[in-house]
């Protein structure tokens, strides 16, 4: 029986709270309407993970609430990762807030597991204190060492160092429900519930069952849980090392300085990597992101792709692209803020290397096969257009709030996550926008309003011929963004129909008239 790789895990509790800079007050971070993290003082007031917003606020009304921002989490974790990386270059970020390293080399060099753990904890605490302002309520980290990343993560939560070979005994007392904490997927929670109802209450109970029986009854997920419960690595150690040609590289000439452009390159690279792996029936579970900068600097970081990514599982090209984007954001934006790193300049090379792969188990297509295949075909064609004309050219629209027809739509470049949905009223109704022109909405919304002249019920658009206005309504006065001098607009809207039967939406500001939209 092969035991897991001796692993050290650094765990920063409540990382989303730390990243949001809220750890000194009762605060909670929400994703999808549920609390995903809360500060220690909020926990003392009874706020817990998984609560709905209303429940949390009922338990402690002055609670400070923030939305979850995974990109900010990753960015804020960058200094911590850099501090841990000073001990060994081979670190893995399991997710923002948790990183792991194999201790075999470092622990010999630094004088044993205990000494290594103490030094890592001191280094990380120093970083956290300098960023979080220190003090008694400042963020802290915990370090644990055990066999295999999962046991090490549990050990880190208790701040323990588990002796080699004792991980199974250490895990035996944990309830099975702790299994679902390793990734926030629904399936695991259901499985843990099933374990519980079958009388398997602790990981020890699970570990005592014969492996073939667990596989037969609970399938591959159950087998993974069983391996974890026995203190073995989640992934078999015989994981194949991929042949080197699977790595994908993009050389950027001229160097890229804008994050958006770099992220677009990263998306293409992720797609290529995904296809390359797919061609040999593999999927990556750990990817090394390497970047080279104008001044010859070379940065690299490992990202683990587990099942908990947004955008439908961590193994998709989109999820990988998202992580590379976070990483680039961390390097390009946050590096400027860290005193020890100088501004890296333009990006000249980006490389994605699959470090660990496993056979792709495939995924289920829709019953009639159509849906996903069509969506992928569309995505390919649009990526082609984006590649030729630039990423911002292909857009999809998302409904947004606003009074003018142009404000009611927000354009999002294709392939990017749409911004968070606008709040909707009860039963999904859109919130009221007083002064909004009632439907129908004009079918032609001019990109930039067309100048017009209105004299004596005669309308001339863009210096064109005069035509009589036969019907009109208005003014609908709006005083928008009065709190911001730069975008403040005070204007009146009119609907007019000309003798030709053309209906326009005019906007009047002082004695300046513009055609905002046409009811074509």
């Amino acid at each position: 029986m092969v035991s897991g790789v001796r692993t050290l895990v650094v765990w920063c509790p409540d990382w989303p709270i730390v990243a949001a800079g809220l750890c000194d007050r009762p605060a909670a971070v929400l994703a999808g309407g549920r609390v995903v993290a809360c500060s220690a003082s909020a926990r003392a007031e009874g706020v817990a993970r998984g609560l709905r917003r209303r429940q949390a606020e009922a338990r402690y009304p002055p609670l400070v609430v923030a939305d979850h921002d995974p990109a900010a989490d990753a960015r804020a974790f960058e200094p911590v990762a850099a501090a841990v990386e000073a001990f060994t270059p081979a670190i893995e970020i399991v997710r923002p807030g948790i990183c792991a390293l194999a201790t075999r080399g470092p622990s010999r060099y630094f004088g044993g597991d205990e000494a290594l753990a103490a030094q890592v904890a001191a280094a990380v605490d120093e970083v956290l204190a300098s960023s979080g302002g220190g003090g008694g309520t400042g963020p802290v980290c915990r370090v644990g060492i055990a066999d295999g990343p999962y046991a090490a993560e549990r050990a880190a939560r208790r701040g323990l160092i588990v002796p080699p070979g004792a991980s199974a005994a250490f895990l035996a007392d944990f309830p099975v429900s702790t299994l679902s904490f390793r990734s926030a997927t629904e399936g695991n929670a259901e499985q843990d519930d099933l374990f519980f109802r079958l009388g398997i209450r602790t990981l020890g109970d699970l570990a005592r069952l014969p492996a073939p029986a667990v596989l037969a009854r609970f399938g591959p997920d159950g087998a993974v849980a069983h391996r974890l419960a026995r203190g073995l690595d989640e992934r078999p150690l015989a994981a194949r090392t991929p042949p080197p040609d699977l790595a994908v590289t993009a050389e950027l000439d001229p160097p890229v300085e804008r994050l958006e452009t770099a992220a677009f390159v990263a998306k293409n690279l992720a797609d290529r990597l995904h296809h390359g792996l797919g061609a040999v029936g593999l999927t990556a579970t750990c990817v090394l992101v390497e970047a080279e900068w104008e001044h010859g600097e070379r940065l690299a970081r490992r990202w683990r792709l587990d099942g908990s990514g947004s955008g439908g599982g961590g193994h998709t090209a989109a999820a990988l692209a998202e992580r590379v984007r976070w990483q680039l954001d961390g390097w390009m934006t946050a590096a400027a803020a860290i005193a020890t790193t100088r501004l890296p300049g333009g990006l000249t090379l980006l490389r994605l290397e699959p470090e660990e792969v496993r056979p792709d188990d495939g995924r289920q297509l829709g019953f009639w096969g159509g849906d996903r295949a069509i969506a992928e075909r569309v995505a390919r064609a649009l990526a082609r257009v984006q590649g030729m004309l630039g990423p911002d050219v292909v857009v999809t629209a998302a409904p947004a709030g606003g009074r003018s027809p142009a404000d009611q739509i927000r354009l999002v470049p294709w392939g990017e996550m749409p911004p968070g949905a606008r709040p909707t009223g009860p039963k999904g109704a859109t919130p009221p926008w007083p002064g909004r022109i009632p439907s129908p909405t004009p079918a032609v919304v001019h990109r930039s309003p067309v100048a017009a002249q209105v004299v004596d019920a005669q309308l001339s658009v863009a210096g064109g011929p005069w035509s009589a206005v036969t019907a009109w309504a208005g003014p609908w006065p709006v005083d928008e963004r009065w709190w911001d001098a730069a975008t403040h607009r005070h204007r009146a809207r009119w609907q007019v129909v000309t003798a030709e039967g053309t209906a326009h939406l005019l906007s009047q500001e002082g004695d300046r008239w513009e055609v905002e939209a046409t009811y074509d």
Partner: protein
Amino acid sequence: MAVAAATLSELAGRAQPVAIAGDRLLPVLPALESLLPGGGLRRGSVVTVGGSSVTGSTSLALSLLAAVSAQGSWCAAVGLPALGLAAAAEMGVVLERFPVVASVGRGSGPGGWAWVVAALIDAVDVVLAGPPSGPGGGVRTADARRLTARVRERGAVLLTCGDGAWPEPAEVCLTVTSAAWEGLGRGHGHLRGRRVEVVAGGRGAAARERRAQLWLPHPDGGVRQVEDEEAGKEVSSGERRPHARRVVS
């Protein structure tokens, strides 16, 4: 019980395959069926939507997409920078499946209008395209022939609309010949609905001229045929509401 049956049939409708390869006709809204040969958009065809001097062609083009999009197909728009996407959503186009290419390059090489349209024809069921207009605009005849062949081969539908002209004879040509707005008075009310007359012509099965009186949009939303009695009522009520009639062009 009846409610449950209705819900079930609605769910069954949703679970249906979105695009059966053998399906030669893409659906359109019931009000538009009488305008098109076969009562739908035939795959592999080019349809032009225009309105010589009368407005309404953009709304008509969007309404042609509505049923296809609602059924689960992908549509795309290119070359129509001023397209009102809020209006598209209101008409029934599902925005998640409606990518828009906001601007295209010049010329007919890679990145140009014809290139982008060809790339989209490969991927989606209906491409709504506005041929480049203005000086130096228009579609070259060779490009138009190539796109027509591509549309036929891929089984997509190319829908052109806007100021630019399509140089080849299209399968179906829809033209808005008259438009009259309702609901707006002299200083009161607001735009509610529009009655348009649409004339369809074209080649082959569409050569016989078809006409339809449509509400585009109806005061209650959506697109509907103008009922005969409504037409009669309109004349009489027009006497009482002079402004409503004067809007007619």
